[in-house]
């Protein structure tokens, strides 16, 4: 999962979580809204972390840091 579709996925999850947050706050469940926001953020972070770790290992091997 590399290239543009990672970016689209991350943006999509961000938008969905934001909409969910709004819906939940309107429905009066602020705590669940906070939980979904945090969960969405964690999912997005985990997805991007894989790419960042490949970036750091590539740079390490290439510039033999």
């Amino acid at each position, binding site marked *: 999962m590399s290239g543009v579709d990672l*970016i689209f996925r991350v*943006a999509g999850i961000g*938008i969905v979580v934001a909409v969910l947050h709004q819906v939940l706050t309107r429905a009066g469940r602020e705590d669940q809204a906070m939980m979904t*926001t945090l969960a969405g953020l964690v999912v997005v972070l985990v997805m991007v972390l894989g790419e960042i770790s490949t970036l750091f290992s590539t740079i390490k091997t290439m510039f033999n840091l």
Partner: protein
Amino acid sequence: MNIIPIIGIGLIGTVLALTLKPIKPEAAMIVALATGTIIFLILVRHLSVIITLFTTLSNNAGIDFAFIEIILKIVGVAYIVQLASNTATDSGQSAIAAKIDLSGKLCIMLLSLPILLSLVETITGLMRQ
């Protein structure tokens, strides 16, 4: 290496980061970081070609490999530090970006100490003759 997909990815990442900015600033920052990472991973293959050319040329020229190694390390450190400090300034944390820049400069300074020492030695050697 065609430049078009790289520019496309960059623009798409910018647009998505911009749309996410008011809704969820954290996700916007992560989208920007992901775009930077993906663009660099595309460039990696071409970068290794340049690095091998650079090392072979310097070997032919008879330059000691330790210096080339240090130069490559400095370039790597400079790139990573720039990536991190730009991401920090983009998301508004200019103080953290300044700290990252400072640490990058210090690290490069430490890396370049051996070159400085050998330069001084060669100069004193010449002067003694």
